[in-house]
């Protein structure tokens, strides 16, 4: 700013001294014009100062903002600096032709570069944090190389583990006087960062957030899920569903092609803006077994192309096998077990294959028979051993459905022990108890029915009319458990005891029908067969194809119950991926079956477990759906709500660049304007 003053002083006119006789007249005239002259000089000076200052600002534009707020160049204290570089899938998004990762690399490289008295480390943050060194180091060149090699991974960002890792490093090095700096280079995706908690870091840590996210969120379409509703049975049509997320401000027509084996299924639909839409088509898999394929969005050019495809794994089951565990004689008719058997297998048509029903005594049934059954039905089972109940609970956790007809007082004990065997995975909403001595449970009718939930949805609006004449007898008393999920009680008797309870247990479900079918008039009601059919379908549907696991995250999957032992099992990865066998995880044999475990699921693709040429299990690894939403978290949320009392500074690189560009233009215009105004002023004052 002093330059214009100096220039003004140096360029001011040097007057020539001459003696003059009429100087009094000159004085008079000058006095008249002095105010005007001073005003002109002041205006000219100010305009020149402004022009020079603006010109300096324009020239200095590339340097403005470069001075990081962290850098205390004159700070001689030892500094420990950890740079967290986001390598999640969203960093592969492209905006204005530039990948977000490409923007992030130079910023991260600048932060990990040499600085006197500083020890630095780099954490590549994806599904699990990966630190380049165990502790901060002065090997800056390696860190810079790591930054230059970094690529977006098909993973979601797990923020908290990365912050915990940084906090651990900070706590292991330095003393109270050590300056601790954490630099996070990320797009600060809302879905990942909304739950970040900086309070795990040491209190005086300076946190610099370098946002490389686009100022305008790039429009993105993503395949979030490919699956089916219910259980797929070979030769029977099923609903193939594809969830498409439209993370753009406008609705978009979408075409999705799903290739499974040699079959191609095409779905079209309109995806509403900022929403998740489900496209559905009817498909049929002719052969039972594992079917793999690929789903992809057709004709879309969006911000993140990697999530436009998704591997698919579907399992087609053979016709279901029901295992009826009862101590009632098959010849006893009418009886509760007879009615339920007839309801499960109504008269078969010629075109539809017949379901298989195995009737067995629960005390004598073999374990492999239990494991091979698709649906377990317990009716008058008598007292069950705890080992048997543990096996049932394990099967439930692994995806089996159990329909328990609670008719006898001993059933209350069985259910209590089953809940105990299932542990925390089973939370019954009610506690069943035998009827009190002398209490007769009869003429019970349904007072409260969840008509909008299966199995009652099958009746539609006629549910009230159909169910009103039904009278129940027998069963157990029930008492609601405090804090339990009451929505699991689908029907309630007029004495407020539960009639039908459907509760999840691990991957399976336990359905309890609290009635003695033998003495109730339900079997003679037209509602009986549809009700049991719908209920069994729901329970069988749980044995559906497994959902894709998120890539990069820990994997733990039980192989299907019929897999058998661990012998001759091997894991195979997609042929196009060149992966080491150690990255595929390991198979462990446990009590309830074979467990496939891996610290991190592999890149997107279909992984299978084979025994010889036979595929016994298949699993798809896919990009987590959270990565599809590219919206960044607001800066004030980061600096205020999530800061945890730490000094958090936020800087948006792209916004600053844009602001700088706009500012530069305006500065140049203002500079030009100052010059024009100076000329106008000179002309106005006739100088």
């Amino acid at each position, binding site marked *: 700013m002093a330059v214009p003053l100096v220039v003004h002083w140096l360029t001011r*006119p*040097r*007057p*020539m*001294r*001459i*003696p*003059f*006789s*009429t*100087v*009094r*007249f*000159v*004085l*008079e*005239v*000058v006095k*008249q*014009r002095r105010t005007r*002259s001073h005003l002109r000089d002041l205006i000219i000076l100010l305009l020149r100062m402004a022009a020079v200052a603006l010109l300096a600002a324009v020239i200095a534009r590339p340097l403005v903002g470069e001075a990081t707020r962290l850098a205390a160049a004159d700070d001689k204290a030892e500094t420990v600096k950890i740079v967290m570089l986001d390598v999640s899938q969203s960093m592969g998004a492209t905006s204005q032709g530039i990948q977000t990762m490409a923007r992030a690399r130079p910023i991260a490289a600048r932060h990990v570069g040499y600085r006197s008295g500083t020890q630095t480390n780099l954490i590549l943050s994806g599904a699990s944090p990966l630190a380049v060194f165990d502790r901060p180091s002065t090997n800056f060149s390696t860190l810079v190389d790591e930054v230059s090699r970094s690529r977006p991974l098909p993973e979601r960002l797990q923020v908290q583990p990365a912050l915990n890792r940084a906090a651990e490093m900070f706590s292991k090095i330095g003393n109270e006087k050590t300056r601790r700096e954490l630099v996070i280079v990320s797009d600060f995706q809302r879905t990942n960062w909304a739950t970040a908690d900086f309070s795990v870091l040491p209190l005086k840590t300076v946190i610099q957030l370098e946002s490389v996210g686009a100022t305008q969120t790039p429009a993105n379409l993503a395949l979030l899920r490919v699956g089916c509703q219910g259980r797929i049975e070979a030769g029977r049509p099923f609903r193939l569903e594809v969830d498409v997320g439209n993370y753009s401000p406008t609705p978009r027509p979408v075409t999705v092609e799903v290739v499974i084996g040699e079959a191609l299924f095409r779905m079209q639909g309109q995806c509403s803006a900022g929403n998740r839409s489900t496209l559905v088509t009817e498909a049929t898999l002719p052969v039972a077994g594992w079917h793999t394929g690929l789903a992809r969005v057709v004709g879309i050019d969006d911000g993140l192309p990697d999530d436009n495809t998704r591997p698919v794994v579907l399992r087609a089951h053979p016709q279901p096998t029901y295992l009826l565990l009862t101590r009632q004689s098959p010849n006893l008719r009418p009886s509760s077990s007879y009615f339920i058997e007839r309801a499960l297998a109504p008269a078969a048509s010629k075109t539809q294959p017949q379901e298989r029903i195995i009737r067995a005594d629960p005390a004598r049934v073999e374990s492999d028979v239990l494991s091979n059954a698709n649906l377990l039905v317990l009716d008058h089972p008598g007292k069950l051993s705890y080992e048997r109940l543990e096996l049932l609970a394990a099967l439930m956790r692994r995806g089996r459905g159990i329909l328990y007809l609670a008719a006898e007082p001993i059933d209350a004990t069985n259910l209590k022990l089953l809940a105990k065997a299932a542990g925390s995975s089973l939370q019954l909403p009610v506690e069943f108890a035998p009827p009190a001595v002398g209490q007769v449970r009869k003429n019970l009718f349904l007072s409260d029915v969840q008509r909008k939930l299966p199995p009652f949805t099958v009746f539609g609006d006629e549910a009230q009319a159909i169910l009103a004449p039904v009278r129940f007898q027998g069963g157990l008393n029930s008492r609601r458990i405090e804090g339990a999920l009451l929505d699991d009680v689908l029907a309630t008797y007029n004495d407020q005891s539960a009639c039908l309870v459907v509760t999840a247990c691990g991957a399976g479900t336990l359905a309890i029908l609290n009635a003695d079918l033998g003495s109730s008039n339900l079997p003679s009601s037209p509602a009986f067969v549809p009700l049991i059919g719908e209920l069994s379908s729901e329970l069988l549907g749980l044995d559906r194809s497994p959902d894709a696991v998120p890539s990069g995250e820990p994997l733990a999957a039980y192989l299907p119950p019929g897999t058998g032992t661990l012998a001759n099992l091997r894991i195979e990865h997609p042929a196009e991926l060149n992966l080491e066998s150690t990255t595929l995880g390991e198979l462990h044999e446990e009590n309830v079956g074979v467990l496939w475990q891996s610290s991190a699921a592999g890149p997107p693709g279909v992984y299978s477990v084979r025994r010889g040429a036979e595929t016994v299990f298949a699993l798809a690894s896919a990009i987590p759906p959270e990565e599809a939403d590219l919206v960044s978290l607001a800066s004030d949320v980061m600096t205020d709500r999530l800061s945890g009392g730490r000094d958090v500074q936020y800087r948006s690189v792209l916004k600053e660049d844009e602001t700088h560009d706009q500012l530069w233009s305006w500065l140049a215009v203002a500079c030009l304007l100052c010059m024009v105004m100076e000329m106008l002023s000179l002309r106005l*004052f*006739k*100088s």
Partner: protein
Amino acid sequence: MLVRKNSRYLDLRALTSLQHLRFTTKRRIDGAYSGRHQSRQLGGSGEFVDFREYTPGDDLRRLDWKVLARTGKAFLRVYQDETNLTCTILIDASGSMRFGQLKPGRTGPLAKLEYAQYFATALSHLICGGQDQVGLAVSAEKLREFVPPGSTPDHLARIHQSIEKLRTWPATDLGHSLRQLFERLSRRGILLIISDFLCDDLADTFAALRLFLSRHFEIILLHVIHPLEERLPTGTAYRFEGLEREGGVSCSPAEISQAYEERFEAHCTAVRTLALATGCDYRRVSTAASYIAALTGFLVERTG
């Protein structure tokens, strides 16, 4: 007539063309000696102009006896006396009159004082040549020098010497000087003031002149202007230093040129207006023109 040849302001060859011209006046004047100019008095000698009826107390020697004999009435014969002219030249020797001095070896318009010196020397020479008396007064902040009117060659030489030795003083008070001169002049005549009239109080100057007028002086104002005064020099910036302790002022002439010219012209107009209103004869001369030409015009105009 004895003339000192060493006055550098007297150019006799240039004055040769003016020898036939006389400095005169149309008014009747008082003179000490007889001369070529009409006296305010009608005496018994000189040129006959009229008859006048006798009134008691008149000089009987001027009675026309022949007319008395023929008509029986007494008439006096009236004659116009002729006397010499007395002119006092007042030169303004204030600092501002120094303006326009040329450096040695350079040519251009004369400085105002130099111009006044040439003009006064020549005019005094012509006045004395016409057997009239000429005096000299030098004005600054007060009356610096006064040479009473006279017509002898020695007197003229003294006047020329005084004019030649003139120098300027840094202050001016023309009114005060005129009052002092008024006190020194005992006989009415002609007062020729050669000045640039750049004084603080112009009204006071003309108030002093009215004293002379009240004594029936004829006053001639010769307003000397240097051409460089009429407009400011061109250039980026000048610091104008006053010649009469007015200080200095720095300015860019281009910015004030027009206003200055208007102001200067207003000053000249004011001097002329005041002079004519007071009853003075006013003549504006520029040093850009030859003093001989200015003197010629001046004398021709007065001769009529």
